[in-house]
């Protein structure tokens, strides 16, 4: 029975290395070896996971964008030195050491990708969604961005130029989407609710006030 299960598993995940354990057991073994050898502390691993599961996420970036919409001096500071501007709001550190903010306009739409791996601005957006790290997105964002955008339900005017930023170094890009119409009465908190994660990657637009969450809330 055990052997049978094992064989099935290797069938499902048999991408070479069939002589080794399935990935779940393999990761468990790797961690326990590293712990036994005194290289890692399980509590530190827990703390790392917890940070990105519960503390750091796209609400950080949404607050940056909403402030850029409402505070012209901050917007200028963000354009001049995004690392410092974002740090002034307390968002710093790993995978956000060198930030550049790019601003969408009616004439120009920005889209961010990492074709070579999965570079992404963690302090403002958290960990990337799986699609951002996936082969289809990495392959096509640089060649057929309008096709990719269509799959996200975004159709831009033909007159809007598309600028794709391939994050090939340690510079991380944050898209500042356009502020939706009809939001004059909203405060920064209300505005930040309209700033979706995808709008800060460039695969989405900021939500219109009153629009349903769900798809667009990403």
């Amino acid at each position, binding site marked *: 029975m055990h052997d049978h299960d094992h064989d099935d598993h290797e069938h499902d995940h048999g*991408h*070479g290395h069939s002589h080794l354990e399935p*990935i*779940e*057991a393999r*990761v*468990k*073994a*790797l961690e*326990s*070896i*590293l712990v*036994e*050898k*005194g*290289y*890692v502390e399980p*509590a*530190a*691993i827990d*703390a*790392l*996971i917890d*940070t*990105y599961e519960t503390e750091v996420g796209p609400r950080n970036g949404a607050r940056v964008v909403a402030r850029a919409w409402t505070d012209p001096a901050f917007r200028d500071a963000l354009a001049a030195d995004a690392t410092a501007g974002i740090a002034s709001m307390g968002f710093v550190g*790993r995978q*956000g*050491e*060198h930030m550049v903010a790019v601003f969408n306009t009616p004439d120009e739409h920005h889209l961010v990708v990492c*074709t*070579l*791996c999965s570079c992404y601005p963690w302090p403002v957006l958290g*960990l990337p*969604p*799986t*699609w951002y*790290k*996936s*082969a*289809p997105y990495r*392959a096509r*964002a*640089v*060649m*057929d*961005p309008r096709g990719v955008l269509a*799959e*996200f339900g975004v159709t831009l005017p033909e*007159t*809007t*130029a*598309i*600028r*794709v*930023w*391939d*994050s*090939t*170094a*340690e510079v991380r890009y944050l898209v500042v989407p356009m502020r939706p119409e009809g939001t004059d009465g909203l405060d920064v908190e209300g505005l930040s609710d309209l700033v979706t994660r995808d709008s800060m990657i460039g695969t989405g637009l900021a939500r219109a006030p009153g629009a349903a969450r769900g798809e667009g809330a990403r």
Partner: protein
Amino acid sequence: MNGAQDLGGMHGFGPVVREADEPLFHAPWERRAFGVTLAMGATGSWTLDASRHARESLPPAEYLAASYYEIWAKGLERLVVAAGLVGADELAAGRALRPGARLARVLSAEAVPAALARGGPTDRETAAPPRFAVGDRVRTRVINPVGHTRLPRYARGKTGEIVLHHGAHVFPDTNAHGKGEAPQHLYTVRFAGRELWGEGADPTLSVSIDAWESYLDAA
């Protein structure tokens, strides 16, 4: 290296698939693979560039068939073995067979917030003046190094314009291989879509990469 990680411009992968609830991790082992990779990175036993190279060195068929954290886990196995911290026999046995080496640092839970806040800035001082300035036309070199590089295939031998200068940054092509940080000026270079993809490309498209100075010649 011309590995499977260099995906820009490939066909055949189908549409971008978005998950309904977009879990950060799809199984408990993905969480652990993420955490243990970061914790080992914090020991300073290798550089971020070396860890990227370990992942992209997976055979292409294996890389493309693997899930994201599977690539991380397999990359970490290669790193600990290459660094002499774990024996291949220990990986095969699934347990430690010898005491561990002494590491410069071991990350504690208490040290996690500060370590993440510090991050790993890659900007460096250099005495070398920049060869290029914003607005300059440049051509990327045609190179095919067997080692690590961050110049994607689709952007080799292409003419573009410098749009940002980031100062000098650690050079991954050497740093990934223990050959030093060898900082170079780093630029964002913007190419017309048609320069990259030909006449059929979206005429409104431009694509930029971040390119180290030695990737570039004046055009």
